[in-house]
């Protein structure tokens, strides 16, 4: 069976763990990419040690590069493996470099898929490959969705709408020249195009800064009022992010903090203490806390070891378990051991939850908690992370941008409407990778509902 393939690239190692990070490239461009990044012709099955270069001979990282010549490789195609020092930012830059050099981001499971198609895996493994593709596409969809929540999604959809409305004008002018709707001739299209370019540039800028896109694990700190939730947040964050007082109910709203543990991003939400309250503001805070708990990847349930309920916190808070989706996502933090005299300890329970005794105020046991959180992230690691989903989106936006620039030149310098139309079509194809497909027939439908066509 003959099938052609473009060159794919992906980060092959788990996120944020270990000292080595690997970017893997497979396909006919692997040799070319190796040559550009290593600045030497790659020798098959030989460990090259040296710098990995960005453009203009600027070193991104140092490490070992391996090149495998087709068909003697895992996928059966030319493969390049860049083993660097890890760290999500460096790895991402390295991956981005491969994309600039002509690779495309691999779909989840795609390396194994290629290996199978090139007879590198036997028939018995076919079922496993099918399962992998299915599972990873489900996972990828979930991650993409997560990356797309909130503000970013809103802005991308707005962009897409802007682009579609521009395309309606351009295509209508081309396909219906006798309908008195030749917008290419008047300034309307140029105006719209200029606005669209500005919006896209802004979104890319914000997305690049990470303002709109956040990834990493969502951790929610919950518990009764004055159990020491805010102290815990401050201890993890390393500075006073939340105001800490002895008065119960000080944190009336959810408070968010973004921290890194060994380069891995974590979003920590400190919530208002869970209790029945007549204070309206505090009541809203409690509701928000409940919402945050439902959506969390991990819940740190804080109990005060000096209070009576510390004996059996779960049975005392049946309503909490109702909100928490899964007990294995819960870490029980037994706080204030400096006051209660309890021993510093980490315990795993049969039902999947874990318990850590510590003192947030004194900093005892905080290191154990950080280790624990790192481990949780490792377990969460799947074939495609939110991180690569985000990289994919950014990549699509940047490609769309370059098509828009091209189209702008065609319109302003040559007034070539049909070439602008082509660039807009390609730009939309890029955005469609984020927002879903949009067919020629959809476009015609929009034209017919916007303009009265019918000579």
């Amino acid at each position, binding site marked *: *069976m*003959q*099938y*052609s393939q*473009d060159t794919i690239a992906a980060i092959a190692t788990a996120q944020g763990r270990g000292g080595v990070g690997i970017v893997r490239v497979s396909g006919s461009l692997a040799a070319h990419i190796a040559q550009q990044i290593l600045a030497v012709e790659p020798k098959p099955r030989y460990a090259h040690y040296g710098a990995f270069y960005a453009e203009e001979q600027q070193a991104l990282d140092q490490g070992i590069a391996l090149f495998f010549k087709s068909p003697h490789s895992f996928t059966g195609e030319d493969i390049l493996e860049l083993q660097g020092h890890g760290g999500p930012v460096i790895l991402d830059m390295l991956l981005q470099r491969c994309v600039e050099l002509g690779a495309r981001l691999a*779909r989840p*499971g*795609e390396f194994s*898929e290629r290996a*199978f*198609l090139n007879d590198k895996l036997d*028939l018995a493994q*076919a*079922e496993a*490959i*099918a*399962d992998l*593709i*299915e599972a990873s*596409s489900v996972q990828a969809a979930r991650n993409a969705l997560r990356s797309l929540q909130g503000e970013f999604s809103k802005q991308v959809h707005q962009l897409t709408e802007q682009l579609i409305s521009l395309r309606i004008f351009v*295509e209508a*002018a*081309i*396909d*219906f*020249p*006798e*309908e*008195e709707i030749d917008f*290419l001739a008047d300034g309307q299209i140029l105006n719209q195009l200029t606005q669209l370019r500005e919006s896209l540039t802004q979104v890319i800028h914000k997305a690049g800064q990470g303002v709109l896109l956040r990834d990493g694990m969502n951790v929610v700190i919950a518990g009764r009022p004055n159990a020491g939730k805010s102290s815990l947040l401050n201890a993890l964050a390393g500075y006073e992010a939340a105001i800490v007082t002895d008065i119960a109910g000080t944190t009336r709203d959810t408070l968010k903090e973004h921290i890194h543990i060994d380069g891995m991003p974590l979003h920590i939400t400190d919530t208002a203490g869970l209790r029945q309250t007549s204070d309206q503001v505090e009541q809203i805070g409690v509701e928000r806390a409940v919402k945050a708990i439902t959506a969390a990847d991990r819940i740190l349930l804080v109990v005060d070891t000096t209070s009576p309920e510390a004996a059996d916190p779960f049975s005392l808070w049946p309503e909490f378990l109702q909100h928490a989706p899964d007990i294995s996502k819960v870490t029980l933090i037994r706080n204030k051991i400096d006051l209660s005299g309890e021993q510093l300890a980490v315990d795993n329970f049969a039902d999947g939850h874990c318990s850590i005794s510590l003192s947030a105020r004194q900093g005892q046991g905080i290191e154990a908690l950080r280790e624990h959180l790192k481990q949780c992230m490792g377990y969460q690691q799947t074939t495609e992370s939110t991180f690569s989903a985000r990289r994919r989106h950014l990549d699509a936006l940047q490609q769309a941008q370059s098509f828009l620039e091209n189209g702008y030149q065609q319109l302003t*310098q*040559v007034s*070539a*409407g*049909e*070439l602008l*139309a*082509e660039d807009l*079509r390609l730009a939309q194809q890029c955005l469609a990778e984020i927002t879903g*497909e949009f*067919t*020629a*027939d959809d*476009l*015609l*439908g929009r034209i*017919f*509902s916007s303009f*009265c*066509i*019918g*000579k």
Partner: protein
Amino acid sequence: MDYPSRFDVIVIGGGHAGTEAALAAARMGVKTLLLSHNIETLGQMSCNPAIGGIGKSHLVKEIDALGGAMATATDYAGIQFRVLNSRKGPAVRATRAQADRILYKAAIRKILENQPNLWLFQQAVDDLIIEQDVVRGAVTQMGLRFFADNVVLTSGTFLGGTIHIGMENYSGGRAGDPPANTLAKRLRELPFRVARLKTGTPPRIDSRSVDFSKLIEQPGDTPLPVMSYLGKVEQHPRQISCWITHTNTKTHDIISSNLDRSPMYAGVIEGVGPRYCPSIEDKITRFADKDSHQVFLEPEGLETNELYPNGISTSLPFDVQLDLVRSMQGLENAYIMRPGYAIEYDYFDPRDLHYSLETKCVQGLFFAGQINGTTGYEEAGVQGLLAGSNAALRAQGKDSWHPTRDEAYLGVLIDDLLTMGTQEPYRMFTSRAEYRLILREDNADMRLTEKGRAIGLVDDVRWAAFETKREAIEREEQRLRSTWVRPNTAEGDALSSHFNIPLAHEYNLLNLLTRPEIDYAGLKAVTGTGVADQQVAEQIEIRTKYAGYITRQQGDIAKLKASESISIPADLDYTKISGLSKEVQLKLTDIKPTNLGQASRIPGVTPAAISLLLVQLKRRQANQNLEVSEQ
């Protein structure tokens, strides 16, 4: 009785699909019979007598590149020629001709009667002879049986046709013609999926009752364009103008106060009409904020007073038609010669067809034209040509052929129909073609003539002209590539000043032509050398200007070809492929794509689903290899 001799191909229907189908089969040398209920209406233009326009002229030129009749007949019958989008780029330019209905019919009749291997016979067809899912021939109204192993059915709007004028309706195939109800009933017994579509026409107006001084004149283009690659301006008859008027608030009031008498709005018509060619009732209801619409008054011929008011197709009752026509400027005293009407007809779901247009459930039976859910002469003609040539190939025991999406608008048309089906009468638009910059009306011959020649569609005269043109283009491109211009030479200075551009260093002429400021005519004028043939010069110029975009599209095409080369067996059971969602399984089962490329174009089929399919195909192949080696 049984007709005494057999045919290789029988074509049923003498419209634009039927005539191109019959001509194509006969050109390829097989014995062909064209059966029509009325020889006088062969090549009849039942709606507006106009050929071409955006997206459509591309199809006409493709028919021409494959030796068909439509473009040539247009050159002999066109009474007003224009190039639309002439100020936009070459990829979207389109030639349109208003034709003289009678001259057009005469031109087609002449071509048909002079075509070797083609026999015409007048008799309506009532039934097909089908033995165990294989077609064997056709039976006419009087019980005459014709035998052939290949039958092309092009029955247009005649299958179960119902004509609506106001609340009145009666059965008819076209105004003035009977429908083919017996045949429709027989076809409904076969396992095809059938649905109804609707289309409409406006009332026709007597030009003697029109005040032209109040209308805007729209003359044809100068210099006069031609439609066929072999066409000559001298073939054109006398040229006349079209005219433009507008609807106004009074017109709109008349229509809205009578909507309850429109069969569309009263719910009498179930068929779906085209969104791009709405009735005037539709326009006024859906775009209530617009208080005026353009109406083109297009003459139907040189020797007739009939005018076709393009833009007011309607099924309102006659008294309302009269009022609404007379409310427009210049038409105050208009006399209506034929009332407008809407027609509903049967069409067959095109997803039940192979790419050759042979039906999936009856071998040897081909469908072409409106029966497949399309609208327009051009869409019908090009399908006729494809079906006719494939019927001939089948008669010759050869493999079928079809162009792909990157080769022709014909390829886009059949792929769209087969992959997505259609819910409204399907019409071609350039925005349907993702390779629009490659599929131009100026290069249909470069794209298709060689293929047409290989299967016997293209005669010696056309082939010789094509080869001459192709060689001239290659020679001239080569000359431009190897001619260098240096700065500070007489020639360099002349070019610099003529185009007002600086020459930084040495360039070859082809390089220079890529610049937006430089055109071929100017280059020829300054250097004093160049080709005289306008078609050759045009090809070189367009190819050079589009070069960057064409290269990128060719990259996409290479990927498309790769995925289209992986065929999917017809008996693949999609429900057995684990991981495919129910929705995707259903869609794939419904359409049964023939290759992976087609599968990926089905709306809703995800890349992950394509991966799963690929793995499944590979597995199946490996299993088969295993079985072979064990035997």
